[in-house]
């Protein structure tokens, strides 16, 4: 397989092959945790870290593991990494850890991670594999944050609520109340709202793609893809 350039890896992960918007993988944590920006960001970063580390390790061992047992080896590697991250979060972001609950250990079963290990890391050198993990994770985190923002604004009328859980007590000023005395729109917080909002985000991406396709060549400059993602 031809080696991909850094540029192609970045564009794949952030936009054209985005984990959440195009592959539609890892929906369970995506839908369950994205009720606020802070929750989404936290889970996104944890997933990002897991992706980078697991891709790098899988790439390192790719020539020493026989194909018959590769999946179970990948799963054990991912599980070990997630356990480390889970314990670290428990120690340093305890309240956030309590909120995210079962979804931190469940990163192990996030199909995007095993998917990247199988589809990319097991066939590429360490550096491209780690980069792929980084950009796939960034793309996933971006969608989690966007979805979290959409649901938080619609559902509670705030942005960055409980920012102190992640950035310490000094970050409370980050919380923005957009609408004073908002009654709350429960649907956006509930799981059906997550499905509807994710559907809207995917639709938005498709609209942007089809607009760019119909426009002449300059608009298809890859820089636009990265800034849009």
């Amino acid at each position: 397989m031809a080696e991909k350039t850094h540029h192609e890896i970045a564009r794949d992960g952030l936009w054209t092959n985005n984990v959440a918007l195009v592959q539609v993988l890892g929906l369970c944590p995506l839908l369950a945790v994205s009720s606020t920006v802070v929750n989404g960001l936290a889970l996104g970063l944890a997933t990002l870290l897991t992706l980078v580390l697991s891709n790098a390790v899988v790439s390192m061992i790719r020539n020493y593991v026989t194909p018959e047992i590769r999946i179970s080896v990948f799963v054990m590697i991912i599980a070990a990494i997630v356990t480390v991250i889970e314990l670290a979060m428990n120690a340093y972001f305890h309240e956030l850890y309590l909120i995210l609950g079962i979804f931190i250990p469940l990163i192990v079963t996030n199909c995007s991670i095993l998917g990247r290990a199988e589809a990319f890391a097991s066939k590429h050198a360490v550096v491209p594999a780690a980069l792929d993990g980084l950009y796939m994770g960034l793309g996933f985190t971006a969608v989690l944050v966007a979805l979290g923002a959409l649901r938080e604004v619609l559902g509670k009328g705030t942005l960055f609520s409980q920012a102190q859980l992640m950035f310490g007590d000094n970050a409370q000023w980050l919380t923005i109340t957009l609408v004073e005395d908002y009654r709350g729109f429960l649907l956006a917080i509930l799981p059906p709202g997550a499905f509807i909002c994710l559907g809207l985000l995917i639709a938005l991406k498709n609209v942007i793609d089809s607009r760019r396709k119909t426009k002449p060549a300059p608009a298809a400059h890859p820089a636009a893809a990265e800034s849009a993602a």
Partner: protein
Amino acid sequence: MKLRTPISPHIHIRTTVTTVMLRVVAALIPGIVVYAWLFGAGVVINILFAIAVALTCEALMLKARGRPLRPFMSDGSAVVTAVLLAVALPPLSPWWLTLIGIAFAIVVAKHLFGGLGHNPFNPAMVAYVMLLISFPREMVLWAPPTALAEPPLDLMETLRAIFLGHYPGALSIDALSMATPLDQVKTQLGLEQSVAQTLAASPAFGILAGRGWEWINLAFLAGGVWLLRKRIIGWQIPVAMLGALAAMATIFYVIDPEHYASPLFHLLSGAAILGAFFIATDPVTAATTPRGRLIFGAGIGILTYVIRTWGGYPDGVAFAVLLMNMAAPTIDYYTQPRVYGRK
């Protein structure tokens, strides 16, 4: 000589989507008149506001989707959705509740699925369930029938209540509202009162079911029967739905009349009649084969009774309709009529 023989069918019925929709609206009018008579002008204001919002959303969505405005705007389907949802909302519900509901019905439930004829779920019921789940407090604030309210709101007071949230005097919406009959029976059963005690103790109950509600439902029944006579709707769904609801209610009423309300009360309370004739019969989202319609209607009737009696909500027509909408393609698949000459 050249004989021009057109292919069959040779007899056409000049029924367009517009005629069907207008007749459905016309059939709703008796019920709406009685409803407005008993509950005040808020009903009519809500309906007019809902129609305006529905037409605006419809036009915006048609424009966004690049569809021609004229044929779709004049087909009347948005108006029917608006009227059905507005009738299902409490008479003094604030304007933004209607706005959000109608916008959700037209934009999400109808146009995101491809517009009229492509929506798998009844838009009015999708919006109703969405509002019920999102705004549980606003959705249960039913004003009492004007006969029970002291003093009833006049037109200006109603307008102020709906659009500004101002209520006359020092009253709040909580003081102006009361539980619906279905709600009351459910709450009192929870307090270990028998159905008969509840019915006798509260002024909210009339001769057949809830005071006022019984007449509204009878008026909707009259409109529905007119639709049947005009062959706008088939008999299978309403008969199967009301029959199944009555059968379930009869069984449990005969076993234990202390804890289960009578079949007549179930038929004439809540949205049973409205749902049977106007909502479940939606040609887009209902089952289409004759046998399938019987199963579809009976399913709604049974589910409505189950949700009313053992569920968390006082009425279950909207949930039942959506659940059976989901089952409609499967029902159609298994109830295809036999083609003549084949097994």
